[in-house]
């Protein structure tokens, strides 16, 4: 395997962005640059599908590993994937073209710059999921702040400046501690190479502090209660496409980080802090679900529901069971699809009616029947109806939780009911009910490009809801391996203590 397929995946969007930067469009509308961006992102999607096809699902090793000397002597540029990362990469490459198709609905000024920002963002996001070196990971993880800051700040709503600053500073503050931890790991073990660190392990006495440093970064990014407050602001003010990227992929970086680094590198500390994560996750699930019930802004409601869903994810990861972790990964993929779809759906009505307030809508089913159908599918996906991806994720997580701690699992199950409540209530208020607002009558049903993007999201949500095997198949071996290493480390450590 000599062709650097992962680096191509990472670099291709950047090359596209450079291409767009240096081409001048004859018409002022930059249609051509949009096609370039779409072409590049679709090519990247196909490339990632090919990667999935040639990927050996039964192997637990990292595959397609590239290892180049980079920072002379101590940090190598190392990328590689296992069964967990490949799904996130495909999610990224799948969501990006959808974003680019939906761009013309919401972005009116400086389209060219926006496309560049999205493509650069894609580079960083893929980089996060590929990197097998802590420093490289940090680099991609942090670099994503720059394009996202600009996306929120330039193309956002009224309070965009506040939201962009909040997003940037919260995330940066969380991350700098992770940088300290990464450098400390380098001096403790002599390497930042993840594979080597898995083998070497980190001494138990350092693990708690290092775990907390990583946790501070991932908790902000997830986001976990009580540092979730940047998310509703960022979501509400970001343009539709920005919200989609944020919800679908950026939040997953942290969940991925938990599995890859917190569990993988600090098993003892993870065991120590399990209860902390449980409690924070439960608060996130119950509290933010209640908050979501009270929201009057659609985007804000979905943002809070994201926090609740991510609460399930963190809960599942720290059950340390095969089902729990697989469920979390599945839930992240599912949430990536569903929340992206929900934000796009909100974008559809926002673009026509220019408000996100729920009480301004009602009775859309009679004038927008197609919209009502797809929106229903997404709503059901979000509340976890059997037959959608949402169900499988939540079900597996709860299974894992019941195995470990019945009380926690029971409280978490309440969250499922609350989730159903706020989602169905949202759906009822927007799509059903009486049409009190006469202005709504002029709203048109879905346009062609909206049908394309939304149905592109409906298909995987239903398909993997009924037939999760392809996804499960590819994560199974890697999750099992992660857990084995985790338990092995724990037992070893206990043996040392005795």
């Amino acid at each position: 395997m000599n062709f650097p397929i992962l680096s191509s995946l990472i670099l291709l969007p950047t090359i596209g962005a450079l291409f767009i930067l240096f081409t001048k469009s004859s018409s002022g509308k930059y249609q051509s640059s949009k096609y370039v961006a779409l072409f590049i992102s679709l090519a990247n999607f196909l490339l990632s599908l090919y990667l999935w096809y040639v990927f050996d699902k039964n192997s637990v090793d990292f595959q397609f590993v590239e290892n180049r000397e980079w920072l002379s002597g101590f940090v190598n540029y190392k990328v590689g994937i296992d069964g967990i990362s490949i799904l996130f990469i495909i999610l990224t490459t799948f969501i990006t073209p959808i974003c680019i198709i939906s761009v013309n609905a919401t972005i009116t000024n400086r389209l060219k710059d926006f496309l560049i920002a999205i493509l650069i963002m894609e580079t960083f996001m893929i980089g996060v999921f590929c990197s097998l070196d802590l420093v490289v990971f940090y680099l991609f993880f942090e670099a994503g702040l720059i394009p996202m800051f600009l996306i929120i700040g330039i193309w956002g709503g009224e309070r965009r400046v506040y939201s962009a600053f909040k997003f940037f500073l919260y995330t940066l503050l969380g991350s700098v501690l992770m940088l300290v931890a990464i450098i400390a790991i380098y001096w403790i073990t002599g390497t930042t190479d993840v594979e080597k660190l898995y083998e070497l392990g980190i001494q138990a006495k350092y693990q708690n502090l290092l775990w907390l440093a990583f946790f501070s970064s991932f908790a902000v990014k997830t986001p976990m209660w009580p540092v979730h407050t940047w998310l509703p602001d960022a979501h509400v003010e970001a343009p539709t496409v920005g919200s989609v990227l944020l919800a679908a992929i950026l939040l997953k970086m942290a969940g991925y980080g938990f599995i890859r680094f917190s569990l993988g590198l600090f098993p003892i500390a993870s065991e120590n802090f399990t209860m902390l994560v449980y409690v924070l996750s439960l608060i996130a699930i119950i509290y933010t679900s209640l908050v979501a019930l009270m929201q009057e802004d659609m985007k804000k409601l979905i943002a809070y529901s994201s926090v609740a869903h991510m609460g399930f994810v963190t809960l599942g990861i720290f059950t340390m069971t095969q089902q729990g972790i697989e469920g979390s990964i599945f839930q992240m993929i599912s949430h990536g699809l569903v929340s992206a779809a929900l934000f796009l759906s909100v974008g559809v009505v926002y673009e026509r009616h220019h408000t996100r307030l729920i009480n301004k809508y009602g009775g859309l089913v009679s004038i927008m029947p197609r919209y009502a159908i797809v929106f229903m599918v997404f709503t059901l996906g979000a509340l976890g109806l059997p037959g959608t991806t949402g169900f499988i994720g939540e079900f597996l997580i709860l299974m894992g939780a019941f195995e470990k701690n019945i009380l926690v699992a029971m409280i978490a199950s309440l969250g499922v009911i609350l989730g159903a409540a706020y989602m169905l209530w949202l759906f009822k208020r927007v799509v059903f009910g009486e049409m009190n607002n006469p202005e709504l009558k002029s709203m048109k049903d879905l346009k062609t490009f909206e049908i394309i993007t939304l149905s592109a999201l409906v298909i995987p949500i239903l398909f993997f809801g009924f037939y999760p095997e392809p996804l499960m198949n590819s994560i199974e071996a890697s999750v099992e391996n992660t857990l084995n290493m985790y338990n092995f480390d724990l037992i070893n450590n206990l043996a040392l203590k005795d």
Partner: protein
Amino acid sequence: MENFHYILPEIFISVCIMLFLLVGVFKKNSASLIYNLSNISLVILLALIINLSSLDTIYLFNESYLIDNLSNYMKIILVGSGIFVMLTGSKYIQVINLNKIEYPILILSSILGMMIMISSNDLIVFYMGLELQSLALYVLASFNRDNLLSTESGLKYFVLSALSSGLLLYGCSLTYGFSESTNFDQILINSTEFNYGTTFGIVFILVGLAFKISAVPFHMWAPDVYQGSPTSVTLFFAILPKIAALSVFIKFLYTPFANMNDQWQTIIIFISIASMIFGAVAAIGQKNLKRLIAYSSISHMGYALAGLATVSNQGIQSSITYISIYLVMNLAFFSCLFMLKRDEKYYENIEDLSGLSKKHPILSFSLLIVLFSLAGIPPLAGFFAKFYVFIAVIEQSMYFLAIVGLLATVVAAFYYLRIIKIIYFDPEKEEYETSHNLGLKITLAISTIFILAYFIYPSGITEIVSKITMI
């Protein structure tokens, strides 16, 4: 006599200075000519230094003058940035009517002084170099003498700098008194035993040096002088004296006072933390870009000093890497500043950047890159600068310093983001002129590309710097 070819660069530049003075006296309206000649002489000077830089450590003149890897590297970046400073400022000084023969000559003499400082291995030689560069800088700061702010900054710098030089001299005399030598190596040998005299000497010398590098709590002059001086001089202030002062810092701490690191380490850590925090917090309220960059440079010096506080070769190297990347970022920032020109007037308030990105996409993109880099966001060069420093700091288990430093970057990120917000999110104002001189464009292009593409091959600087070992 055969030693003389080792200091050929210094001799060359002294001869140039005298020659240009003569030309200036006898030939009328020769300001532009001298400016260009000075620039050429700087290029030749750089070539001469690079030519000598392959040599080993060489002591000259009774071991009072030292040429080694440290001095060579520092001189190269010093003269290199001097060339770019001259290139970027050439149009500016014409526009604000400062194109006089003294200007380039003063810059050259100050560079000569700094070169002597960098190479000195003796308290007296060091002080000579220091004063040569300071005297030239006093005049440069007040060069725009019809401007109230400029005269004020010159005077302020002169008074405070004279005070700090006094303290420094007192420290030197104490050190001499208790170690019986002015030679750095001899001081190291003679000061094996602890005594209060030398400790006082160290403190006074550090105070003087901290003043030159504008580290808290001796930073008071920096904002006023940065704002008041002509922008081209501010750029000079922001880079060259810092390089010279940092290398003198390294020299003092690791040659004569190497045995007493338990005495000075706490001081350096304190100065470093104070500068990082103060620079970050005080810059938040600023409205003038030059003033803001003054505070930003204070906090950057804090990071550079954090590397020195580690008492390790890695730390010294990280500081040197830091200052190298810092100078490029400053060059890029000031090049952008020189481009904010409309109707023969330069603009330097943050508000003047409002909505810049609509009419000047390339300029604002460069500023975006520079500002994110100054804030230390990966994958830009500024991140690597901080990264190296923190690697060295954490190696010595100085976690407190590392965490404070990194938290200060978050605070600092706020004001850099504020500028970006004004450039990108705010409504646009009038357009600026788009025709600029070639030197300015080249400097901006080179420095922006350097910052942006640094991550592709980050080992370049570290490999060169790794030759510099002091311990």
